[in-house]
């Protein structure tokens, strides 16, 4: 670790801590204000007009909002479940085996993380519109964009995120443990089930929470992969914002905010479990061998 060069009490030290508090205020003030205004009884989204819960009641009674909320939840759960399985398998293959086509696969797996949302969205739009046309031409199928296409596109980016998180965990794991299990006549499956899996479980949980968060938050890709019939909550809200802001949007936003904060806290807790085991600091990437946990 690096020691502070600024002497305590010096102008530099004051300026540094001052900056830090200003930045934290910048991070949190908008969030706090949004929560406050969601309870405000005023038609203007940014003015306080006394306490009310009516915007939340409107949210509960709004059938389109409720529908899109359920679409969001179903898409998030399904895409997370599938991408956790595929992403974990991919991570294991890349970290524990050497196989043909590995480098290409490794690169391909990083692409969905690094390309901008908009380009991924464009890819999905063109792919599904072509796909639907071909399905109609060849098989006479009448397909429309909706739940399935949204889920397919979410899995396409979530696999990569899950595999990165699981790989980080795997590379920090002591391989000798697996070798020991094999030396003790465990077969591949038993060594995976009783040695590897318990060790990487926090990584898998972290990857799953990340996938849930990304799926619940996504606007751009979903907007291009969804049809007029069904869409997710963020896309619906995004459309509402563009038509004009209302206090109802404040309330819906606070609900989404609460969901993502719950997910962050859960993933920080799983990360804590990891740190607790190996004595790493939070900012560290888990790349050291976790000898201390043996």
């Amino acid at each position: 670790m690096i020691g502070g060069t600024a002497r305590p009490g010096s102008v530099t030290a004051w300026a540094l801590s001052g900056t830090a508090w200003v930045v934290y205020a910048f991070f949190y003030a908008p969030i706090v204000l949004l929560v406050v205004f969601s309870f405000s009884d005023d038609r203007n989204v940014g003015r306080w007009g006394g306490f009310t819960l009516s915007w939340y009641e409107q949210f509960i009674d709004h059938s389109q909002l409720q529908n899109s909320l359920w679409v969001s939840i179903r898409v998030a759960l399904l895409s997370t479940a599938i991408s956790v399985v595929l992403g974990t398998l991919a991570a294991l293959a890349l970290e524990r085996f050497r196989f043909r086509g590995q480098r290409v696969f490794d690169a391909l797996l990083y692409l969905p993380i690094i390309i901008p949302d908009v380009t991924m969205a464009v890819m999905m739009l063109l792919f599904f519109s072509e796909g639907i046309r071909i399905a109609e031409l060849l098989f006479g199928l009448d397909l429309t964009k909706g739940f399935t296409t949204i889920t397919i596109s979410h899995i396409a980016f979530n696999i990569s995120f899950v595999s990165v998180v699981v790989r980080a965990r795997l590379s920090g794991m002591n391989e000798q443990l697996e070798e020991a299990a094999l030396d003790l006549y465990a077969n591949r499956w038993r060594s995976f089930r009783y040695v590897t899996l318990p060790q990487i479980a926090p990584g898998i949980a972290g990857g799953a929470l990340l996938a849930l968060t990304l799926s619940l938050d996504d606007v751009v890709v979903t907007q291009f992969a969804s049809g007029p019939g069904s869409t997710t909550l963020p896309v619906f809200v995004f459309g509402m914002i563009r038509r004009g802001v209302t206090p109802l949007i404040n309330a819906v936003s606070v609900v989404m905010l609460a969901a993502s904060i719950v997910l962050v806290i859960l993933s920080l807790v799983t990360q804590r479990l990891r740190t607790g085991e190996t004595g790493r600091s939070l900012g560290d990437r888990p790349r050291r061998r976790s000898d201390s946990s043996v």
Partner: protein
Amino acid sequence: MTLTAPPLPTGPGPGGAGTGLPEVTPEFERAAARADSRRGFLMSLPAYVYLVLFFTIPFGIVVVYSLATRNTIGGTDLAGWNLDSYRRLAEPIVRDILFRSVWIAMLTTLICLVVAYPFSYFIATRTPTIRNILLVFVMIPFWTNFLVRNYAWRVILGSDGPFAAVTEALGVGRQEILFTHSAVILGLVYGYLPFMVLPLYAAIERIDGSLIEAGRDLYASGAQTFWRVLLPLSMPGVLAGSILVFVPSLGAYVTPQILGGGKSTMLGSYIVVQFLTARNWPLGASLSFVLMTVMLTATLIYFRAGGRKL
């Protein structure tokens, strides 16, 4: 990347003669390596197939569309490939949007860098316990719904909102910056600041403090120590953070829509307009391709400069 040696006995270990296991021979090792290769391939296969089907093929379709021609009714003729839509990138309207996006993204990156550097330095120089708590409070906005965080600024900057009230109280007159470039930059800085803080923190935390003390011992002033010791040593973090902020800012769509008033101020929103309203798919596809190329180049620079995986 760590690779395991074939996890089969390779020496006078438990697999040696007398235990009933096959003798270790070169042929045996090769067979084991082949079996290993097959297992790895099979395990990666589901994700591999999925990504080829739903990522590589869509990517190919974008490239094909970028070479196609828009017909008069707003459809796309896939026959007869040409580079027309790439030529259109040099037209004044498109060029202006490209330049403006680059300029806004650069300004966002610079502001993030200036704000995040002292902040990350402050975090990195705390004791481990406080450091972890401070980092958690950076992680929370980092993971919070991006749309909601942009919307919060819409509420604050809106007419009669808190921002107008504060500027009025300060005596500078009611300021309305919503739907201006300033609002877009503010939203982007707010959205991507954690992307700058985290790599900067990681880089600064890794620096050997005795090097800074050595600088001070040799009578360097605080500013000299910063410019000649601290900053050069934290350069990997500066580079990583800048790329992580610059690239998504360049392709930003949600922020310009919400805080920029839906005008196609930036590349991201201009691309979307080509698909959803202007119905010029070839132009949209070629712009996406350009954006992707910028992105991949930046990532390669990042890895070349010794950056770790994202």
